[in-house]
């Protein structure tokens, strides 16, 4: 018994107490048939070697620690951004339990989502009955303004026809005819979470505009449509809206979950809060243009708009970092004729001021990155604007074309001459990469922490610290509320990066009576 009433310790540090160490060590010695520590150490060293890296990169079939999730997760996030919308997943219920949990852990918020709980009988006879009963129950219980239906791999493998199931359910009266029930096929064995977001967006836009776009008059409502893509920083939704408001540009943000994922604690649970108005979705073909803010992740949406709407569909880079935010604002100004206001210019000036203040700490610093394709594009571009050098860029869910475009962007800058780009690889590959060529830091989601630990074990000088930017972030609180887009987002990223560098320097110079000459007060 190690805990006393005066000193109650949870798992750590409790299990560092002697009696636990003894018990656990005995278990290992007597019953686990574990190989000896020397052999373990030798094998660990082997996993950090160039030889192992080569073997690791020969892998063709096995994926280890992927840097992606599956389609319906994305479709659920997209659905949550519409007013009064209940995300509905046609298929096995376990998937929805996972989606809700995964988002709960990232956002620290409730996630409302139902499934129609398909089981063996549905696997044999199809999920038609489940859809009828599911829509009826969901509508009765949760009274949504819209039910957005996507699928799991189960429903896709058995080939359920969503469109006819929904039509029949409406005919049967399971839900009212007028209740919007858009849908998307989101098989988990195609693409990733970003594909699912894209598919659901396309499904919703199609549902509301398919018969209306022909009568649309482009530009008649004076609005700009903004499509953020799979976006998990709540501040990013807010800054997109703020810039439009400051520029006095009417807009429709297509999927805006920033309210429903950030409701107050005041004694009441709000299942539906905020979100894109459904009326506004109907009006989108009348806008001046639609800007896709994650161009590499919005393939299907882009195709639909291009094939059916008459809008010019101007292409922009994600508004990440300094120059891409400049470009973005200028594009809006160009499209609407509205000038960029002094307030935003002031904000830009402040960002530039911050960059000048911090550049000496970031210039030449080396970063290895993993994450979604558009995030990696924007992030590497911003790093190079700061004079920092990307070492590895690894994307599990991009295509070869993205790899080429990324490489071209890197080679156009003096800071990207030696950057390696890896497409379709996973985090076990990434681990080999950072052992092979050590960066100063890695940038990515929480899963990177295991790589940090593994590099530290080789010795302090091999440690690659993780800077948490991306999705999911399960092991830190509230980072998802910050902003990574626009000048404001660049400020957040810059602050995060430069202070990581300074923290690291402090840690390395804290030696009492040894390295403390560089443990400076003023920086």
């Amino acid at each position, binding site marked *: 018994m190690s805990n006393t009433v005066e000193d109650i310790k949870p798992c750590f540090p409790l299990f560092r107490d002697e009696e636990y160490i003894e018990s656990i060590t005995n278990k290992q010695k007597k019953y686990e048939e574990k190989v000896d520590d020397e052999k373990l150490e030798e094998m660990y060293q082997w996993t950090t070697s160039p030889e192992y890296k080569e073997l690791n990169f020969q892998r063709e079939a096995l994926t280890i620690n992927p840097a992606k999730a599956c389609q319906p997760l994305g479709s659920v996030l997209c659905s949550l951004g519409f007013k009064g919308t209940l995300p509905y997943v046609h298929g096995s219920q376990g998937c929805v339990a996972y989606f809700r949990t995964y988002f709960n852990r990232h956002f620290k918020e409730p996630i409302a989502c139902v499934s129609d709980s398909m089981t063996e009988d549905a696997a044999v006879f199809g999920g038609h009955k489940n859809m009828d009963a599911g829509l009826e129950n969901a509508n*009765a219980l949760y009274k949504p303004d819209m039910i957005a239906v996507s699928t799991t791999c189960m429903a896709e493998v058995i080939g359920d026809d969503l469109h006819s199931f929904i039509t029949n359910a409406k005919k049967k009266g399971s839900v009212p005819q007028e209740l919007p029930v858009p849908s998307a096929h989101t098989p988990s064995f195609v693409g990733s979470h970003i594909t699912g977001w894209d598919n659901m967006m396309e499904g919703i836009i199609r549902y509301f505009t398919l018969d209306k776009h022909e009568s649309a008059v482009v530009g008649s409502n004076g609005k700009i449509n903004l499509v953020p893509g799979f976006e998990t920083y709540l501040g990013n939704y807010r800054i997109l809206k703020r810039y439009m408001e400051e520029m006095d540009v009417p807009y429709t943000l297509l999927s805006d979950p920033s309210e429903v994922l950030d409701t107050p604690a005041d004694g009441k649970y709000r299942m539906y809060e905020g979100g894109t108005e459904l009326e506004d979705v109907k009006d989108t073909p009348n806008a001046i243009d639609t800007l896709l803010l994650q161009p590499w992740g919005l393939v299907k949406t882009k195709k639909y708009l291009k094939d059916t709407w008459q809008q010019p569909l101007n292409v922009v880079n994600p508004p990440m970092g300094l120059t891409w935010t400049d470009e973005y604002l200028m594009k809006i100004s160009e499209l609407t004729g509205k000038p960029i206001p002094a307030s935003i210019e002031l904000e830009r000036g402040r960002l530039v001021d911050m960059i000048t203040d911090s550049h000496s700490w970031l210039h030449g610093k080396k970063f290895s990155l993993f994450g979604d394709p558009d995030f990696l594009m924007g992030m590497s571009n911003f790093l190079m604007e700061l004079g920092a050098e990307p070492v590895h860029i690894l994307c599990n869910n991009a295509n070869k074309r993205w790899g080429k475009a990324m490489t071209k962007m890197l080679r156009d800058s003096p800071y990207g001459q030696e950057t390696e780009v890896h497409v379709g690889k996973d985090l076990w590959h990434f681990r080999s990469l950072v052992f092979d060529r050590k960066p100063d830091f890695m940038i990515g989601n929480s899963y990177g922490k295991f790589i940090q630990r593994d590099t530290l074990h080789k010795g302090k000088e091999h440690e690659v610290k993780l800077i948490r930017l991306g999705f999911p972030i399960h092991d830190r609180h509230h980072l998802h509320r910050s902003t990574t887009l626009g000048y404001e987002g660049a400020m957040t990223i810059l602050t995060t990066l430069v202070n990581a560098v300074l923290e690291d320097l402090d840690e390395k110079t804290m030696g009492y009576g040894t390295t403390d000459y560089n443990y400076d007060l003023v920086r």
Partner: protein
Amino acid sequence: MAATLTREEAQSLIDEVLEVYPDSAKKDRAKHLAVNDPEVTQSKKCITSNRKSLPGTMTIRGCAYAGSKGVVWGPIKDMIHLSHGPVGCGQYSRAGRRNYYVGHTGVNTFGTMNFTSDFQEKDVVFGGDKKLEKIVHEAEGLFPLMKGMSVQSECPIGLIGDDIEAVARKTGEAINKPVVPVRCEGFRGVSQSLGHHIANDAVRDWVLDRREGKLPEPGPYDVSIIGDYNIGGDAWASRILLEEMGLNVVAQWSGDGTLSEMEMTPAVQLNLIHCYRSMNYISRHMEAKFGIPWMEYNFFGPTKIAESLRKIAEQFDDTIKEGAERVIAKYTPIMQGVIDKYRPRLEGKKVMLYIGGLRPRHVIGAYEDLGMEVVGTGYEFGHNDDYDRTLPEMKDSTLIYDDVTGYEFEKFVERVQPDLIGSGIKEKYIFQKMGIPFRQMHSWDYSGPYHGYDGFSIFARDMDMTVNNPCWGTMKAPWKQ
């Protein structure tokens, strides 16, 4: 503080909550909701469980894959557990359950890693057996110290008719290590419960006989811990007590467990089972095949711990009985200290639970040790034998809800206004916004252990820190009060 409902009030609350459902759904849900009557000893007379969830309701349940990979197999630390199918299932279940272990991750232990066959469209069309075969060899090449593999089937595997058993047999022979096919596709059964059963059957068929004829003579005090997943280190805090009373814990399933421990289990004298729901199957099998008796125990809270230690000791000689008394005598005053400190802060507080496995009944005693009362409880994926074991633990007119939907749970809570809710992460943020103190009782809210005497101290501390944190009093802006 919440007032206790009378039996009539509780029943009318249930009736009222059911009103919103369409007719057939109402009929179905009514069978899953009950008011406890201590005179009823058999749950089948009052509650239906382990049936399909209603489509379109917000069930909190998971799937068979979650039961097998997430609960039973995943924590076996020195094997690689392949999530066979598309990428999502493995990613969502990666390192989320806090099954603590010690080992060199990526070298001889693999618990927090995610191995997946990342199925693409072509794998669904042409089948994944060839890919699976290649994966086993690639894994063996990169992780030669792994003790074996399990293949955790995701939905498409069963639907496209892959023969993973054949591949498992062939590759297992080739690498001379067990490769275990587990047919835990998510669409099987109605919840994670069937996944536990399927996982147990795979252990029975592919692991337990591996040392037949080579097992040592069991020592007189050799036991195993079964159905402890070492959440936050629970099994370790249990293990030291069993060791202190003189028993020899040969195997720990499956938290911090290893293949060798599983293989050695047929040589123990007694299987001690904590989570009955997830591992009664394998315990029954070992009783039938190897003649090993098994018994349930409960290590939540000093009252139940002492009861359990004595019950366990009853199976052995005086040495162990004295050992149990010695352990109880040593810890009772320390536990009294914990109770003296926390009980005054928690006395009379009402708790609503909704959890899985063993906890909807096992933690009741721990709350009672702190003077708290459980006024509602229910199982995510329990069967009627779980409810049979629960009814005697509950007071009159307690609410019982099986596979409660999000809608029902919110309504019950609004009416009952408990002082604390113990449930999972999907419920946590809803009730916290409603201003009700909440502890995650699947993951111990990133704390723990909660088992054993060390665990009870932490449990008491955690309940106090939540129930009595100042944040709950700040929900209303002062100008609104």
